């Protein structure tokens, strides 16, 4: 039974939650509009925009030509001159075509111009493997953008945050990059109705635990939780921290957890080397939490390989629940 005054809570899929955020934003603010390839009548490659074009019309849900650099750059220019565009990359991989407008223009404009302009653009990146789409349609490139000062970069793992982060991104006057995971789109979860925001720059503790901290991003949060449940039965009590925000990164939440547990595993899908887990590890290793560490910091990242097409190989190159279990047992073995 719902208590009086609590927000209405419903089950929506991750894609539906984003669509709801976009819908609310389009309703609330005339300056908001959507741009992207096939986001109109097609509804987006992953049906995130769905039927929004029917409600809001083609001037606010704009199909762009297949021109990622131009499209993203037009969004940047519009953001510099009073609008609040939301640009959808059809796949995160195609951001490679628009890095110049993202990293050289959007990220740096405020700084280069000494604070005289803002670039409140939002960009959305359907990322990750698991759909059999092979090497050019499966990448997790949040580390590229996370390395770029001037951007904010988030990675929601649950529908509630997906909605809240889109709305938070629109309140931000800086460019916000949202990495969505393609295999999360259909995942359902509780999503409050109406307008709310999820803070950018804050991690969420998804499970508390005493023996081990698992910092995870995106779809890996689910795998970490699943692993934690198995581990609990074995007497290993894992805390699962959903990083949520890559830039800025929530140092305090991570450190606090590590100070408590003394052990850290970072799980992320992006390529291991120079991926998000490298930053998490280095952030801990240079902090006062270092003194609390009872064991090396383990990273479970994607293999140093493009994503293969064959489904077994595809699974083999990104961390699975079983990999987390092995690492956790190894790390805690005989030492708890």
């Amino acid at each position: 039974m719902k208590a009086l005054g609590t927000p209405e809570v419903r089950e929506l899929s991750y894609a539906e939650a984003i669509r709801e955020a976009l819908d609310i934003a389009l309703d609330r603010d005339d300056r908001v509009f959507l741009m992207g390839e096939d986001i109109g009548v097609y509804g987006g490659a992953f049906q995130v925009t769905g039927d929004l074009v029917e409600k809001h019309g083609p001037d606010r849900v704009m199909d762009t030509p297949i021109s990622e650099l131009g499209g993203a750059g037009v969004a940047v220019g519009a953001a510099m001159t009073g609008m609040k565009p939301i640009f959808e990359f059809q796949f995160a991989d195609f951001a490679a075509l628009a890095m110049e407008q993202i990293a050289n223009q959007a990220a740096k404009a405020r700084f280069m111009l000494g604070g005289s302009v803002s670039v409140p653009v939002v960009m959305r990146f359907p990322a990750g493997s698991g759909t059999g789409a092979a090497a050019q349609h499966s990448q997790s490139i949040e580390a590229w953008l996370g390395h770029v000062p001037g951007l904010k970069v988030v990675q929601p793992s649950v529908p509630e945050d997906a909605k809240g982060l889109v709305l938070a991104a629109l309140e931000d006057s800086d460019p916000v990059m949202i990495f969505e995971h393609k295999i999360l789109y259909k995942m359902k979860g509780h999503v409050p109705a109406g307008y709310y925001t999820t803070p950018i720059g804050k991690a969420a503790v998804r499970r508390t635990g005493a023996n081990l901290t698992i910092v995870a991003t995106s779809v890996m949060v689910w795998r970490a939780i699943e692993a934690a449940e198995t581990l609990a039965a074995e007497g290993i009590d894992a805390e699962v921290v959903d990083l949520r925000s890559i830039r800025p990164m929530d140092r305090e939440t991570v450190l606090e957890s590590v100070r408590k547990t003394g052990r850290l595993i970072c799980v992320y899908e992006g390529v291991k080397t120079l991926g998000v887990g490298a930053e998490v590890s280095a952030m801990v290793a240079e902090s006062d939490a270092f003194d609390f560490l009872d064991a090396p910091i383990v990273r479970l990242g994607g293999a140093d390989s493009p994503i293969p097409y064959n489904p077994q190989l595809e699974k083999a190159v990104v961390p699975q629940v079983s990999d987390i279990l092995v690492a956790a047992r190894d790390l805690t073995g005989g030492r708890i």
Partner: protein
Amino acid sequence: MPETNIPYVIRAYRPSALKEALMKMYLIRKFEEGAEESYMRGLIHGTMHLSIGQEASAVGSCMALTDEDKITSTHRGHGHCIAKGADLGRMFAEFFGKETGYCRGRGGSMHIADPSKGNLGANGIVGGGFPIAVGAALSAKKLGTGAVTICFFGDGAGNEGAFHESLNIAAIWKLPVVFVCENNGYGMSTSTERSTAVKRIADRATSYSMPGAIVDGNDFNAVTEAVDASVAWARAREGPSLVEARTYRLRGHSKSDRNRYRTREEITQWMERDPIPRFADLLIAHKVITRKAVRDLEDAAAKTIAEAIEFASASPDPRVEEATKYVYAERVPA
């Protein structure tokens, strides 16, 4: 019939080559149908982009090419691959993710390639092949091989910056490359009209001072005549050119397409312009082949496809322990 009324392909090619071309068109059609069916049966993972209806541009464009000549293909690349002489069993094996596939199961439909026949690969990135094709043409020029490269691309791809940069470079360096635009009216759901600021994509050739031509892409004879001229132009060291083949994809963009952006009628109209019966009729009219022999070809194509699927199904999966093999060369070559 006076010589000049005889269609180009009848004049230019031997009957055996023309029959082989028709066979390839059937093979493409049956291949795509086989792929579609395999997909339904869950044998194929991921997505794929069928070229049903576009067989004439694939096969017609490659008529004048040898195995030394290169092509760069697209996400909708099965037809190009077959036109350039690929083995169908290895193609299916790739779709099924098998070790015997062209990419050893690592690439799938969007990366299928056959460098041994000069096919540098499909591409998952729209427009990704433009500069690669120009680079291949540059190699040919530097190595003096006389080889020509055909760069296939879609109408949608023509709006990528890579189109502009690549055609410009090819033109200033007079490279032996032919840009073949398969204009099927849509990039995914977005019609050429809504995405492209020019009515005739071939007109963009003027921006690079290169010849541009438009042909009925469902007319094998027209495609071949135009592309052959471009290939000859390139071989004669005259530089690049652009051919726009107007065609249509009879299936959806990919397996997840609900076709909400076009009408049933439009699709039906284009079905009537199916390039395969048109080409078969032409060959029959010019007595290159009999109607009966055409039916035999079609049956043979179906059989070849069935065998190819069988080969692929029976092939082994790659070893999971070798998931990251081929990221780097195993050794430095001499």
